[in-house]
């Protein structure tokens, strides 16, 4: 990629050559069914996560070895330290430690969505800054892109294992572990948009007419990255929720005392054939959320992309 800028390929079709979005898009956004449905589901999931303490039937980490692997709707009785007995109905059954799967799933909404959003925001903002620098400052471009190539060349899962084992397994290390391999992809995207926009006649004209760099970036470059980054961001958000599950599958995810949809499924996978509920219910929540995030992203893109608008 040491070739001159004019020979740079346009790396993504999601990188439209567009003027900044107009305020009217907000109204249009809410006319798009995918945006409305996607947003609705995401909001419902977030709401479930928010009110988890109110709807959970028991402490999601409370173990009860005497009531393990119960089928959905089974009940169990637990004796508390003060001698009282409580009977709990397990809407989604229990896992191998006798923890209530329903309570874990609703609490899991908090962590899983948080991870998705945090990873997306972090990757996009880090990638945006680095990508801009790479695309704009020529002499740094080579160095940055070599490092990005190096980072990207390391298998993401392995990079994640290394990052997680560098520090104690937990939410922060898992987020970092997922962000690190995502950043180079965003950088490449942003950089290619910057490079292609720079070749546009109106930008070249602006450069020739002596527009300050900052103004150029804010007025012309930045707006052009918004649409592709939203699409990329939704993909990252959705995949982060999945990667978290894969890390759990490999035994290096968030420790099971903090329930996430991923680690509930990963823990339940050994009993897939006998007690499918441990994987089924968190799976449904996870798939629905990822689906909603993707629909939201699709809708946003269709609305923000003027070319689509023309066809619509």
């Amino acid at each position, binding site marked *: 990629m040491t070739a001159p800028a004019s020979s740079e390929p346009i790396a993504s079709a999601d990188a439209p050559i567009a003027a900044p979005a107009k305020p009217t898009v907000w109204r249009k956004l809410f006319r798009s069914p995918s945006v409305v449905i996607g947003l609705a589901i995401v909001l419902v999931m977030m709401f479930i996560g928010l009110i988890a303490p109110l709807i959970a039937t028991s402490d999601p980490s409370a173990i009860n*070895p005497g009531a*393990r*692997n119960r089928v959905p709707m089974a009940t169990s009785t637990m004796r508390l330290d003060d001698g009282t007995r409580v009977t709990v109905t397990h809407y989604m059954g229990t896992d191998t*430690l006798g923890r209530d799967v329903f309570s874990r799933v609703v609490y899991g909404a908090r962590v899983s969505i948080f991870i998705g959003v945090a990873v997306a925001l972090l990757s996009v903002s880090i990638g945006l800054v680095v990508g801009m620098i790479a695309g704009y400052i020529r002499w740094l471009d080579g160095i940055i892109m070599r490092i990005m190539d190096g980072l990207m060349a390391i298998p993401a899962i392995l990079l994640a294992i290394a990052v997680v084992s560098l520090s104690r*397994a937990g939410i922060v290390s898992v987020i970092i572990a997922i962000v690190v391999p995502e950043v180079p992809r965003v950088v490449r995207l942003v950089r290619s948009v910057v490079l292609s926009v720079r070749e546009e006649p109106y930008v070249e004209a602006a450069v020739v007419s002596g527009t300050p760099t900052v103004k150029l970036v804010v007025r012309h470059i930045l707006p052009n990255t918004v649409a592709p980054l939203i699409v990329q961001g939704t993909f990252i958000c959705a995949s982060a929720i999945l990667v978290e599950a894969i890390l759990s599958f490999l*035994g290096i995810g968030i*420790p099971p005392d903090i329930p996430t949809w991923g680690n509930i499924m990963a823990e339940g996978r050994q009993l*897939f054939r006998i007690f499918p509920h441990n994987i089924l219910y968190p799976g449904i929540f996870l798939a629905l959320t990822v689906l909603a995030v993707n629909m939201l992203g699709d809708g946003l893109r269709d609305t923000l992309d003027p070319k689509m608008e023309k066809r619509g």
Partner: protein
Amino acid sequence: MKSVKLSRRTVMAGAAAAGALASSTGASAQGSANVLRVVMHSDLRIIDPIWTTAYIVRNYGYMIYDTLFALDAKGEVQPQMVDKYTVSDDKLTYTFTLRDGLMWHDNQPVTSADIIPSIRRWAARDPLGQTVMGFIGSMEAKDAKTFEIKLKEATGLLIFALGKPSSNVPFMMPKRVAETDPNTQITEFIGSGPFVFMRDEWKPGDRAVYTKFAGYKPRSEPASGLAGGKVAKVDRVEWRVITDQQQAVNALQAGEIDLIEAPSHDLLPLLKADRNIKLFNWNVLGNQYTMRFNHTTAPFNNPKIRQAVLYALNQEDFLKATIGDPEYYKVCKAMFVCGSPLETMAGMEDKLESNFAKARQLLQEAGYNREPVVLLHSTDLQVLTNLAPVAKSLLERAGFVVDMQSMDWQTVVARRVKRDPPTQGGWSAMLTSWVAADILNPVMAGFFNASGDRAAFGWPTDPEIETLRARFARANTAAEQKQIAEAIQRRVSEAPTHVHLGQWYSPGAHRGNISGWLEAPAPVFWNMEKGRGA
């Protein structure tokens, strides 16, 4: 079928391939007559059973090596490579004679000159070996088949040690191999056991392959435990690696493999329901869950606080959470295992009952300062995963502050040998499991070693226990041994070195046409037959 180099099978494979895409005949084509396809509990990576204590390597050792003595099904030590032996009246001189016809896999005869360096190399690594070596004055080959061991002081442990059933097993190796530095792995894989290791077909992470050794002369007695005639009845044994437990069960049900050494307990109902599959509890003594303390740092450098743990925990919760089915676990307060000669309840009567009131009282008396217990939680080994959360829950109910840190097992293994303070990468407690055959007495069971820096990770220092262990090694009668074992258990119940959390059993599963699996502390593949049919 995979790597068998018989042209007939290759032809069959080709023929099957033609119509294989939509048929299920592939499985039966794979079930080639005299090949045993086995899934073991882990992958074979290291192939020096003296250098490592890993159970998979011990199992490998039993395939290709032979032992001087061996434990039979009744738990008694019987001669194996040894034909007969005599003990002098002062119990200080042992004279052994080897059996006729013992051969190494390179068809050279086994001689006394091979035996002595083999014993030395084992005794340099094994804790029980080290103890016994302290009693040995000299070892000498009298002739090709006779050797003599002279003791400095009498001990009842020599024959037991030479027949030690589990890691490290004193396997006999050729002289040139046995003379390898004990801290270096051996590079030649020749034994005198019933199977030959196929070095070229060994692919770590995929398979290890053994073939029958034509030159092996089994004893005439019927096989019993690890003793008796080791008759290889299959031509070939393939250890295949299937890391996913559920997939191993699926493969067994589909007939792609013949046997699983230790299927996950939660999957046993699937296997029980399958008429083509049989379960077999080969390791009758079972295993014991154990919680180990780090004695060098707060809070567990205080014996009273360790004893509080002994009061706070109960075995049933751990066993239920990991094993589940009561058929496969046993609450047992005897440290040296229920069903063994040293089984005793001494000192344990009121403990391991989750008496939180008593635990809180002890904590108060000990002046527990709410130092966090850094509890290592391994997340990738099915049989251990659920232990730490149960420990955390019980300890918290007793008033402990618990900081449970989750990691893969390999990290636990690396972490537990670190002596840093718990806040700087050290630890306070961790959970593991022992094969019962390894902890039958206080000398062989590593966690009772309380010699500080020279002890295993956790590093307990307790002169009283050490004195008792030394006395045990000198004890000559079973009654005396039992009495000392009781004293040790009493001492450990007051100042615990570790907490035993119950016994559990791990049945193997095999297809219906497999027979002859022996009850023994290790899974062995001699005497096993493969019949016709799926």
